[in-house]
């Protein structure tokens, strides 16, 4: 009976955690810090059932209690079972330097009026920042469009995390994307090597983007690339002819989506596949993320990357 109850409780907690990772629910919360906390805590709660159990960010081992240890670190469950005091040991790493590179160009402001790609990206960035900070890793933030708009160097303090949150919250979309050039600039600017997490919709010349990414690799950075897209961008699923306006350049184009839909979808698939292939060749972690994708996929990808680095 106890086992069943325990299992049910675990399931319930896991379901709640999964709920917390859905973008549409996260959007209902106020404050980016709260959003980040919810996402990360929900994610970690879900990890108990994941293959990453025992990963060093949580705890590493139990050791017998010794005088001078904080009482709050005593594991009371173990005490209940063994009648002895054990302390939970957590691994603390402070040697990772992570840069969150967030694309805030005009194309990220889609679809207007609901959760945009930028919203999704900033919540993802906030969650990653929270997670990194929780691990005592240094985390910095770069917000770019066709140029670098804001650069916050990496730090591991709680106050720094709040600065990052505030910056993310205040970011407004706008401007053109020149992702290739910006990546080259950033690669030059980030002197000390670390983990570079790029969150972008990658709407730029594919060759230039890949060249920019390779530049980072040349500077010995580890790269994690999140390719954010809306399902409309992948499917072009519109029922009537449209006058399309480019969110960045303002250029207009009349199309009948019914006539070019199949070719467009094929083109988008090819583009994604080529990004993936280019990233693989350069040993870059590439993760396409639709706006409907829960945040845990992104966080898992990060953890995979993090584990490799550790």
């Amino acid at each position, binding site marked *: 009976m106890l086992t069943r109850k325990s299992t049910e409780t675990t399931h319930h907690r896991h379901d709640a955690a999964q709920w917390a990772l859905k973008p549409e629910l996260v959007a209902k919360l106020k404050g980016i810090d709260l959003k980040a906390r919810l996402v990360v805590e929900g994610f970690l709660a879900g990890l108990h059932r994941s293959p990453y159990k025992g990963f060093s960010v949580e705890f590493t081992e139990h050791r017998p209690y010794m005088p001078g240890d904080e009482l709050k670190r005593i594991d009371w469950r173990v005490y209940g079972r063994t009648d002895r005091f054990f302390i939970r040991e957590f691994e603390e790493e402070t040697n990772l330097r992570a840069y969150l590179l967030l694309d805030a160009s005009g*194309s*990220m402001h*889609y679809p*207007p009026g609901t959760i945009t*790609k930028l919203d999704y990206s900033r919540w993802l960035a906030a969650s990653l920042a929270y997670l990194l900070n929780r691990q005592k890793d240094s985390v910095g933030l770069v917000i770019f469009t066709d140029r670098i708009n804001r650069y916050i160097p990496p730090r591991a303090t709680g106050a720094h995390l709040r600065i990052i949150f505030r910056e993310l919250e205040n970011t407004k979309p706008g401007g053109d994307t020149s992702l290739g050039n910006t990546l080259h600039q950033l690669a030059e600017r980030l002197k000390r090597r670390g983990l570079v997490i790029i969150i972008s*919709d990658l*709407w*730029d010349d594919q060759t230039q983007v890949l060249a920019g990414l390779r530049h980072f690799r040349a500077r010995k950075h580890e790269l994690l690339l999140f390719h954010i897209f*809306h399902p*409309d*961008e992948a499917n*072009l699923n*519109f029922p*009537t*002819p*449209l*006058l*399309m*306006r*480019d*969110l*960045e*350049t303002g*250029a207009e*184009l*009349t*199309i*009948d989506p019914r*006539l*070019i839909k*199949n*070719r*467009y979808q*094929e*083109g*988008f698939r*090819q*583009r994604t596949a080529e990004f993936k292939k280019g990233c693989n060749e350069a040993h870059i972690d590439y993760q396409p993320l639709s706006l409907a994708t829960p945040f845990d996929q992104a966080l898992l990808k990060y953890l995979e990357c993090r584990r490799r680095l550790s």
Partner: protein
Amino acid sequence: MRFLAPGFLLLLPLALLPVLIHLLSRLRLRRLAFPSLLLLQTVRRERFSWLRLRELVLLILRTLALLCLLFALTRPYLPRFLPGLKSEDLIVILDDSYSMGYGSRWTHARLAAQQFVNAAKRPRLILTSQPDTFFTGPKTLRTILDTLTPSPAAAALTPALIRAFTESRTGTPPLVLITDLQRSALPETGLSQPPAPLHIVHLGRPKFVNAGIGRLYLDNNFIKAEIINHSSQPITRTVRLYRNGAFEEQTINLAPRTTATVSFSAHRTAQTGFRSIDTGFVQLSADSLPLDDTRYFALNIPAKVPLLIVQAPSASDRYLNLVLAADTAGPFLPTTVHRPELHSLDLSRYPLLITTDAAALQPGDWDRIDFYLAAGGAALIIAGNPLPELCGLNRYLKILGTNHPAGFLTVARVDTTHPILNIFHPRDFAPTRFFLTTRLAGGKSLMQLASGDPLIVEVPGKNLIVWAFAPAPFATDLVFKAPFAPLLIRTLNYLTTTAYRTDYIVGDTVTLPVKSLAPVTLSTPLGNILISPQPGPPRPRIVFADTRSPGIYRLDSIAIAVNPDAQEGDLTPISDNLLPRTGITIQTQAVPSADLTAPLLFLALLAFLIEMVILVSEVFFQKRSPVRK
């Protein structure tokens, strides 16, 4: 270009509907902000030229299809003038028979006539339905041509042609004949050469679809209608008989160029009076020539007919009664009396009378019979026994004596065209032997012996049939043979229904008996007409020639039906090899116009099909073609 239905030209602007929809859809195009046009441009550039072309092609095809459809509604045609026909004087002969009402023939004929009338300075017009009248003066001709409709009369080109040829001899103006050149409209030979060139505007076509109603007649308990398929393809028609405010319907399939008979039950109505007439009409489901789809009838369909059999001691009515008793469904109600009782009977109660032995009748009896026949009664007189020279029958026929051969005589001729005998074949009577007959002369012989003596005689001007043989074994073995019963019944039917002719063709002169010389009112489909009768002999009658309108004509209790000639419905044009034999040499034969309706409909269909092919192929190829980089 001219139009048969120009009213539909008002709908032509609707053809711009696709263009309007196209422009409106462009104006109302939904705008959408999209992250990047990078990939869209790549994909669209590849298909851009095709898309623009496709849009344009589809727009043109849709507009074209709609334009063609709307244009086809106006039924346009290209008029063609006969070449080299420029003359100040011109005689136009216009066939206005009812066959010209088929399809759009009349419209074309009228337009062709108008062209000729307008082109000539002194045009003259002659209509085949009125060959005695020449219409002159451009204004009069234009008015006539504007209002003229095909007459219900059959085509008879000869009178109009002869009149036109006569007229053409002075000044020799060219002649134009506008006709469908029906096979029946021209005599096969004998027409003189036209004095001036005769141009024929030939509107006839060998292919047509038309059915009509031929003869309508009463056959015992049935009204029978002959349905004729004039065309060279099988057809299905619904035939309706309208009578006494109700109708009966049948459907019939007809093989090409065949005639079939449809039978309707002739319910006998309880009618009073000496003779009464049932009227109504039979109608076919309509085709492109409606005039021959309705046929009126005026038939005597009596209730039980009281039949008086005057029996003589020398001649039994046994075999007559056997037949009448067997015909229980028939209309006859026989009453047998002996000759002396004839004086005490009111004969007007009996529309039909049979005397079994004419030899037994006294002079006073003959006076009564004579009076009875003059009053409209009908009689079958059996004159089989040897007759005295002073027999009253010689009031109608000449008595030549008796045929009493050592052996027997056989039938040599049967008039199978007569209504009494038209169901028989002469061989039906071949085995019949006659042992004793009376030799008669005069009247119309319907059946004749090998000796030349008549066996059955119809007396003209009277409802009287005389049999020159007695229906008894001592006179003939006919009483034991199959034709005897139908012969007797049909004779009685004929006598009760042929008081006067009830079926006329349009244009016929109608003669109807009247009681006195006082003017009478004849009711016609065009209104009532007061007519003064003409005196006899034998009786006063009215003669009426204006039967141009089909329908029922009534005079008191008398009714007749006037119908178009059924043969006019056969629209087969005269063949090219037969035409020269008529005496006419064709100078120019031309079609007056080219109908554009069918090509336009074809074009609309083609445009629609091309559009379908484009749309279907797009769906097909979109599923298969990968993006080319």
